[in-house]
């Protein structure tokens, strides 16, 4: 119980918010808008899972938003060329994995700091995409939206897929050697090396995995609408980093889990609809998001200080 204090406190805040909504704005609890909200956040959840891994391994990846845009546009272009979706999906994942491998090679191979490397790849990818596409939207064939299924079925399918992936990864992080490996690298890379595992190789593959998940998320994004816009990933990196940090994953590595990241994401995702339902101007969303991040890190800071004493 004490071990999961941080995650439980985020869940408690989320429950308070949901309870407040139930009392003051019961209109929030309508099945269709809630399902739409969940569908919109499903790709974000996938990226947040990857980001949680990256941050637990004491790295950071701020290029995911640009990777997401590049994968979305490439997958959409392939789909528009009438590739079957069964091929577009692995292609999108592969493109993401390659982009992640570039980050991984620079960070793990050359030992460069992930914050600057991914800052640079973020700009390079975004501007490269803008230069090639000039902000043009891609129109998709009819059979792409919701995999050609009805909207409700497609929405349920996406949400279920995202949750299944979350559960699988969350369990793997706790029970599989690969998951413990991520914690080992993030807690103390040198100790991990002495224990016989290879932190640099591991870091490389964590970034590849992050890219692959982003590619998957991009695929889940493009099937939601008839058109794909190239700016779809702008700001995604901050959203997922915020969710992961609010969910109790320590930015200094080695601590946290995916359940916390999930609770953090739900909390942040509920703010915008909550603002509308509680009749607060939507312009406050970003400021409140920032305040929540600061609150979460301050809480962490106070807790770790108490731990010192």
């Amino acid at each position, binding site marked *: 119980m004490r071990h999961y204090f941080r995650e439980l406190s985020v869940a408690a805040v989320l429950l308070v918010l949901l309870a407040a909504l139930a009392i003051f704005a019961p209109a929030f609890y309508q099945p269709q808008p809630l399902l739409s909200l969940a569908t919109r956040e499903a790709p974000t959840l996938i990226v947040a899972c990857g980001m949680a891994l990256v941050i637990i391994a004491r790295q950071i990846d701020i290029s995911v938003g640009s990777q997401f845009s590049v994968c979305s546009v490439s997958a959409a272009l392939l789909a528009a060329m009438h590739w079957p979706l069964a091929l577009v999906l692995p292609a999108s994942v592969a493109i993401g994995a390659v982009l992640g491998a570039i980050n991984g090679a620079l960070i793990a191979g050359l030992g460069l700091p992930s914050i600057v*490397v991914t800052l*640079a790849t973020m700009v390079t990818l975004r501007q490269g995409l803008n*230069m090639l596409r*000039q902000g043009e939207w891609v129109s998709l064939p009819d059979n792409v939206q919701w995999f050609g299924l009805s909207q409700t079925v497609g929405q349920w399918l996406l949400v279920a897929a995202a949750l299944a992936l979350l559960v699988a990864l969350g369990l793997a992080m706790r029970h599989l050697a690969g998951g413990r490996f991520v914690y080992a690298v993030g807690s103390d890379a040198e100790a991990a090396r002495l224990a016989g595992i290879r932190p640099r190789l591991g870091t490389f593959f964590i970034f590849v995995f992050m890219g692959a998940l982003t590619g998957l998320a991009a695929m889940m994004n493009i099937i939601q609408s008839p058109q794909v816009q190239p700016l779809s990933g702008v700001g995604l990196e*901050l959203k997922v980093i*915020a969710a992961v*940090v609010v969910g109790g994953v320590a930015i200094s590595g080695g601590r946290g889990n995916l359940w916390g990241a999930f609770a953090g994401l739900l909390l942040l995702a509920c703010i915008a609809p909550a603002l509308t339902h509680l009749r607060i101007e939507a312009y406050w969303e970003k400021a409140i998001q920032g305040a929540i991040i600061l609150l979460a*890190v301050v809480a962490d800071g106070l807790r770790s200080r108490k731990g010192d004493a």
Partner: protein
Amino acid sequence: MAATEQARRPAWKTLLFSYEALLLLVLVAEWLFFYFAGTTMNRRGVVVGFGTLDRQFDILRHSCEIGLLAVALTPVIITGGIDLSVGSLLGLCAILFGKFWHDGGLTIPTAIALTLVIGAAAGGLNAALITALRLPPLIVTLGTYSLFRGLAEAITHGAITYTNFPSAFLFLGQERWLGLPAQAWVSLPIGVAIWMLVHRMTFGRSFRAIGFSPDGARYAGLPVNRRLALVYVIAGVVSAVAAIIYTARLGQAKADAGTGYELFAITAVVLGGTSIFGGTGTVHGTMIGVAAIAVLKNGLACLPVVMRMNAAEEMSGLLTGALLLVALTAGVLPKIISELRARFHLGAKT
């Protein structure tokens, strides 16, 4: 022979073979390239494009804001920290300045003074969280990055733009004074002041010591928290100055002012030879880095090829990102090479 020379290398030689000198050489080469490739004559025989004097002043004018942010970020990064919130703070200060003047009915000088105080307070917030709670600067300033921009959007409802500033104020951003763009007379002294702070005062030594080893600096008796607070407060105040210059140049204050500027500023600092791990770096290197990025951006817009593609903005962003990757790789290359050498020639050397 070579070894003894190395040991007694005079100061000018150290300077000549420094990274900054190399970067300066690259800058000159870059400038010459654009001078020859981007200057043309129009039909009336007037020189247009990159080679005109007006263009040089334009480059200086446009590099003032990012230059200020980059110069202020240099001590922050030397101490091993980072400040992602400077671009957002620029936006917040710009619209607060507009609000003080437009809605608050303050005079321009009072509004400027108040904006600088806001900048100091915002930097103080970063500093307090980083020093008092020992939180990582990356995540603190990520939070304030979101907070400051969000406050700017909330105050303006994402729509209000403050305009119609008096012409005496716009002079600061749009006119020339004593031959130089007026804002250069503000930015350059600030740059020199920060250069003095980092390179000619004991403060600079303590910044480097903290960057190398915060614990070591603490054991050596340095007031680590006060020094760290100082660099973040300076970053806040300088962001406010940049906000005022930005507003004066564009004649309007909007909530999205300075979006993405933190990126260009960090790029300029790293390109200028400051280690992102902290401990080493120079302010003049940063200034050359800023100039290299500004010349690249302006020069590309003058190249006929790029003009036809209508993608100067995107291309300069792309090249800036690529340039940052190259500079980073070049920075660790000697270490990598010596590592590989050690691995393959271990027997032969020892």
